[in-house]
């Protein structure tokens, strides 16, 4: 494969990983990073190992181990995943690597699909691990093979930071040849390097500090930073990531010329910054989220006693939250340089539009589980929840807390420990339970919480795009493997009440939840039913349902169920079922008047 192709940013990154002759790939799904491993795992043939790990910490350690053995490795995750993997990350910086290791982190400015919008570049500064940041998908692909080489040269992992607009943008990509594999895989015993006991760590820390200047020097001339000086202009722009291309368009729209430094590496290219500052009177630093570059530029300016004014977000000209776009850049540049801007304000639009939040699919089993859960426990119950499709239960009043992956059970314990007297019933998905829920459940059992834990086992990691997990009996490449049994696992941890139910059978689910509620101590109920999307893809079809308008009394009970397949005709005052119906039959179980039935063939 070579030439030019139109592809998703994450597919381009996957291609870069292949071009860089990777040996081992691991990751945990998370928007906007998931398609990288998805793409590599679905290749018909591959000459590298790939896995979905159970969480980011595990994934990071798998990649680190592979690298210690001399292999080239990649680990992928979303920004918050790096928090989970921060423990191995920080010490890996001391320990270093042998085979090139690239840590791919996809940030999500504006929280399109995330619980926060933290800036992973801070981890680069914190850990002293170099970071590469592309501003286009083409660069994203091209940077990966370089990242392996940099990693091997300095024996240190390299962070590669993407953002939603790189990962989920599409563009034409020029492909390059795939490099020949040359790394020999052989773990060599070397305790000074691979055993981070205090005596060795004390040696590795100064080593890490000592290579920083060399890495900075190498990155300065690596080609990933681009400086262009406009001799006629007294103003300058320093920008990174996608914000750099927005800034270029903003300059064109404003009709001004400015010296321009595009930064693609951390540590930042200090010489280029100095050159730009020497030729300008005013500079604005344009970067999404944290003022990482801005702060460092101010330190450089102070050290060399330049009088260039440096603008950015600490003075409020640019926001420290949310993703950027051309209009935000126009506003910031205009304010910094005192130019009149034709800032676009969205035209006044006085028509009231109905909000359209994402919703659980028609036929989603979570809706049935939530319905019964609410019926059994009542409104006067605390419902801690977790991260996955079921977080959409917020619209059904069944999600009272969502903190981070796996936190539902531990938050439930904490609420109980605080002395809350209401019943506590928490929900967690199958993949999230494997990710970090197991520890929380063990803790709850060990420390004698009195809570109900509902594991919503829809047999897949659905929200991020249907990745396999250890409960499915399939690996990332869909190879058969061991299927971890939730009930046995929970029993082995000491849970005395463990039951498995089918949420499509509401009566049986109700009975089990009643008993779970009455049980003193931790009760675990596993609501097991395949995700309706993956079931349909697997060829499972049910007969859709319909409303018998003679029997329907227009009570709207089915509408409150919140299924997108159920509508209400305001003229006839009857409910109706649209073409989205997947035939789960839950609404028929709810209807008081038996007015909902299968469509007759």
């Amino acid at each position, binding site marked *: 494969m070579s030439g030019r192709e139109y592809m998703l940013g994450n597919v381009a990154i996957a291609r870069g990983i292949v071009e860089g002759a990777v040996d081992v790939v691991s990751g945990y799904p998370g928007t906007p990073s998931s398609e990288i491993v998805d793409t590599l795992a679905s290749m018909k043939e591959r000459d590298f190992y790939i896995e979905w790990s159970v969480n980011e910490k595990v994934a990071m350690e798998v990649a680190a181990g592979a690298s210690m053995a001399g292999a080239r490795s990649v680990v992928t995750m979303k920004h918050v995943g790096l928090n989970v993997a921060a423990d191995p990350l920080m010490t890996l910086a001391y320990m270093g690597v042998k085979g090139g290791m690239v840590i791919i982190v996809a940030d999500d400015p504006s929280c399109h699909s995330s619980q926060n919008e933290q800036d992973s570049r801070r981890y680069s500064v914190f850990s002293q691990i170099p970071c590469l940041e592309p501003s286009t998908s083409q660069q994203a692909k091209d940077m990966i093979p370089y990242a392996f080489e940099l990693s091997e040269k300095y024996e240190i992992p390299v962070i590669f930071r993407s953002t939603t607009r790189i990962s989920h943008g599409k563009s*034409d990509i020029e492909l390059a040849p795939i490099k020949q594999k040359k790394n020999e895989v052989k773990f060599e015993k070397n305790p000074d390097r691979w055993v981070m006991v205090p005596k060795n760590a004390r040696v590795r820390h100064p080593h890490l500090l000592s290579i920083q200047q060399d890495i900075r020097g190498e990155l300065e001339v690596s080609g990933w930073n681009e400086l262009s000086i406009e001799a006629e202009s007294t103003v300058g722009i320093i920008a990174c990531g996608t914000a750099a291309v927005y800034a270029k*368009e903003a300059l064109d729209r404003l009709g001004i010329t400015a010296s321009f430094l595009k930064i693609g590496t951390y540590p930042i290219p200090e010489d280029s910054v100095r050159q730009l500052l020497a030729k300008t009177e005013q500079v604005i630093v344009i970067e999404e989220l944290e003022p990482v570059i801005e702060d460092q530029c101010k330190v450089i300016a102070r050290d060399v006693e330049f009088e260039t004014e440096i603008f950015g977000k600490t003075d409020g000209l640019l926001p420290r939250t949310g993703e950027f776009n051309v209009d935000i850049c126009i506003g910031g540049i205009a304010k910094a340089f005192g130019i009149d801007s034709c800032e676009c304000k969205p035209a006044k639009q006085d028509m009231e539009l*109905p909000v359209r939040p994402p919703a659980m699919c028609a036929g989603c089993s979570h809706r049935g589980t939530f319905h019964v859960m609410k019926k059994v426990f009542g409104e006067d119950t605390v419902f801690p929840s977790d991260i996955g499709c079921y977080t959409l239960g917020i619209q059904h009043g069944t999600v009272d807390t969502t903190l981070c992956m796996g936190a539902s059970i531990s938050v439930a314990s904490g609420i109980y420990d605080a002395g809350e007297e209401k019943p506590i019933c928490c929900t967690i998905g199958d993949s999230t339970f494997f990710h970090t829920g197991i520890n929380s459940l063990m803790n709850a059992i060990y420390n004698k919480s009195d809570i109900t834990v509902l594991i919503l086992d829809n047999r897949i990691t659905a929200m991020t795009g249907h990745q396999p997990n250890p409960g499915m009996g399939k690996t990332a490449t869909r190879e058969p493997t061991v299927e971890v049994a939730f009930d046995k696992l929970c029993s082995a941890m000491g849970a005395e009440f463990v039951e498995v139910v089918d949420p499509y059978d509401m009566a049986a689910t109700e009975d089990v939840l009643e008993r779970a509620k009455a049980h003193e101590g931790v009760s675990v109920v596993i609501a097991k039913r395949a995700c309706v999307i993956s079931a349909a893809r697997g060829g499972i079809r049910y007969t859709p349902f319909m409303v018998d308008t003679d029997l329907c009394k227009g009570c709207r009970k089915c509408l409150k169920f919140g299924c997108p397949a159920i509508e209400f005709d305001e003229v006839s005052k009857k409910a109706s079922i649209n073409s989205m119906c997947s035939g789960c039959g839950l609404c028929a179980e709810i209807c008081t008047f038996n007015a909902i039935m299968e469509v007759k063939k």
Partner: protein
Amino acid sequence: MTSDLSNFDLVIAGVGGQGAVKVSDIIGKAAVSEGMDVRAAETHGMAQRGGSVVNYVRLGCELGSLIPCGSAHGMLSLEPVEAMRYIHDVAKDGIVVMNTSPIYPITVTSGQCTYPDPQEIVARLEKDYRVVAFDAVALARQAGNMKTLNVVMLGAISSYLPIPVDTLVECIRNMVPPKTIGTNLEAFRLGRETTRQ
């Protein structure tokens, strides 16, 4: 004001599951095969579960994928309310091709919000934009499958895109399931007829 840094900036609005990404994919691939640089932005993840979805496609553009406010050359809206929601991205007098058949969000079916009259939306848009509005669901049914709604709409916008129609047709052939090629090409033809002068 449209941008001279892009040959054609298109906003594609709709509801998760309507096939907006597929349309942007077909247009993008077709443009690349014509030698154009393309930048596109898509909605993934959380927003796909029946939520409001907006995609941007910039043809002949080497910069970012986000279209500056009020500067798109055109909009393709698979759903009436979603046209209104993102119309501020389109330049005055830009072309708006929209489906008039609504998808009611859960907030409407559950009685929390009301859905505006689609004809009122068309009337509002016609004040500032060139609007082509029609019931694309009916045309998709006529083509043989409701799911070809997105390709009907692609047919309608195709009259305004700087891409030869044969290239688009070729991309549809290559990018839809083999069994559905006939239905999709018919959907494309029916859509294109709505905008042929």
